[in-house]
């Protein structure tokens, strides 16, 4: 097997706040292989965005990547790289696409200027070359009449177009890895589909790896080949997309699947996972999902589950892997019992 492009080992990003240490990312390890589209899925507050920002070391005070974390990329450990070296990586070898195309562009410069800026930050070419490249990239991302559009300001473009501009910015240096943090969440559904199609098309064309971060399993199904499910700052399940959708193991993943609206069913209300993600300053002992889980038993409280191997390439952080018979005895999750008692 060839060397993975990005290899994260035991990443812990903690925020040292006044109300305690928020362990937002708490011992995450995974690899991204060259040319693959890896999805990370989870609710808000589960640590997926912090993981993404940690890779580019964009975590701000009071957040800190703790000692013992390693982010290996192209032979370097990004955790200990100096600031200059990190700037050479950002936008050049690893690019990022942000969630809000409305606010991720500087309102006072034309979009062409902003795409060209990435090339000027990293390249030695002239302003004119950078501009030409920028127009090429805009055209590549499917923006009609790119010369004209390049001279326009962000507020003159629609949300979908702005997201295309951000993709052009991410692609202009031909990076090895693109981190897309909820790239379609702020867009309406038809534009969403176009942007995903664009991303997968460009990925196939340039062989770029993409780390797709989303809370939307539909996005994962459409784009990714492998998925990580995150909960409570940890990876709780890892599987190929096919396995995940046909044989999800972790009760949290099951809950996510169940919560997806189905066209074929008629239902008054959507299924939900009861309760909310606990605050990262106070993860429960044992399994972090146990309060919301309908299978939890004593073992879940006393023993933090490791990642059990379910099959080749499929792991799950749930004791059901060793006591599968318990799956036959679901009960009301703790948060619902407490809620009913109140």
């Amino acid at each position, binding site marked *: 097997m060839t060397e993975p492009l990005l290899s994260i080992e035991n990443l812990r990003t903690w925020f040292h706040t006044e109300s305690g240490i928020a362990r937002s990312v708490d011992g995450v390890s995974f690899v991204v292989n060259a040319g693959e589209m890896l999805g990370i899925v989870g609710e808000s507050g589960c640590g997926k965005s912090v993981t993404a920002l940690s890779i580019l070391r964009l975590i701000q005070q009071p957040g800190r990547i703790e000692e013992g974390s390693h982010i290996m990329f192209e032979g370097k450990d990004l955790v200990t790289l100096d600031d200059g070296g990190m700037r050479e990586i950002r936008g050049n070898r690893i690019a990022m696409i942000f969630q809000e195309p409305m606010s991720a562009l500087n309102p006072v410069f034309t979009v062409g200027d902003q795409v060209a800026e990435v090339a000027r930050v*990293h390249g030695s070419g002239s302003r004119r070359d950078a501009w030409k490249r920028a127009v090429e990239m805009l055209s590549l991302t499917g923006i009609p009449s790119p010369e004209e559009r390049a001279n326009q300001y962000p507020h003159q473009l629609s949300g979908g177009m702005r997201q295309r501009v951000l993709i052009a910015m991410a692609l202009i240096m031909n990076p090895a890895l693109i981190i897309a943090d909820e790239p379609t969440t702020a867009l309406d559904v*038809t534009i969403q589909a176009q942007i995903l199609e664009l991303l997968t098309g460009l990925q196939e064309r340039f062989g770029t790896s993409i780390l797709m971060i989303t809370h939307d399993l539909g996005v994962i199904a459409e784009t990714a080949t492998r998925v990580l499910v995150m909960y409570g700052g940890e990876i709780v399940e890892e599987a190929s997309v096919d396995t995940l959708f046909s044989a999800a193991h972790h009760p949290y993943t099951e809950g996510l699947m169940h919560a997806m609206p189905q066209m074929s069913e008629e239902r008054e209300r959507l299924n939900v996972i009861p309760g909310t993600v606990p605050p990262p300053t106070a993860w429960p002992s044992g399994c972090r999902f146990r309060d919301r889980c309908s299978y939890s038993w004593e073992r879940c409280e006393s023993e933090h589950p490791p990642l059990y191997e379910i099959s080749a390439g499929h792991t799950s952080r749930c004791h059901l892997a060793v006591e599968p018979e318990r799956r036959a005895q679901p009960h009301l999750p703790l948060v619902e019992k407490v809620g009913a008692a109140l």
Partner: protein
Amino acid sequence: MNSDTPLIVSTAGRAGRRWWTTDPASLSAAALLVTIAAGCFIVPLMIPMDPLAMPEIVKLINLPPSIDHFMGTDQSSRDVLSRLLYGGRISLSIAVFATLVSVTLGTAYGAAAGYSTGILRSLLDRVLDALLSIPRLLILIAIFAAWPDASVKRFVLILGVTGWYGVARLVRGQVLALKTRDFVMSARAMGATPSRIFFRHILPNSLTPVVVAATLGIGHVIVLEAGLSYLGVGLDPPAPTWGGMIQDGAASIRNVWWLSLFPGLAIVLTVMAFTILGDALLRALEPRQKQRDD
């Protein structure tokens, strides 16, 4: 592929960000300012006028407005209109240049305070708080009392150096807010250096309120200069300034009302025009503000 081409967005966006205006109040304010400036700086070049000439200090003193002297003469037989126009030159120049000085200093300090972190930022913040707590008029009187040699240059410098705290606070807040904006994070994520982030992404976006503050500030300096002259700590006589002229006529305002009335009107009109213009700029440059107001 083309389905997300905007149909309305582009024109609406353009209208929201244009810097000119069709609002009649702001247009008349702009016209008034142009008239006042032209009167002060151009008319005296075409029509011979001498603000200091005292042709006949017995017969021609304290004449009421007439065909010969549109705004009358003062107690030294000097023509009030000539003094008003020349005084306007000095008062307007002082206001404009003093504001330039204070806006430059304030932007630099505010940007430094907003962009710095840790101890340096606390230090800059405390110093600014301290400066903001000193009443400006008192400090000006103290400075002029301690250093009585009055020249226009010194006046500009002193008004500029004591006038930047408000702008600094404004820019500081602006920079602080911009630091956390997505496009600044996005610039960091693409490998921009801290200085590039500052000069390209933070500073240009924090200048809108500065332009507005400067416009409003000019009016403020005119009033301040008039007040200082009135208190007798302004420019030395016989050089005319609007505030000085009001003070000249203050003692005899019942009988010789034209001495104070015309410079007073000039100040009111000019300051009002700058204020209306400042508000118009604010609305034109800040579309969100505009929506709230309308």
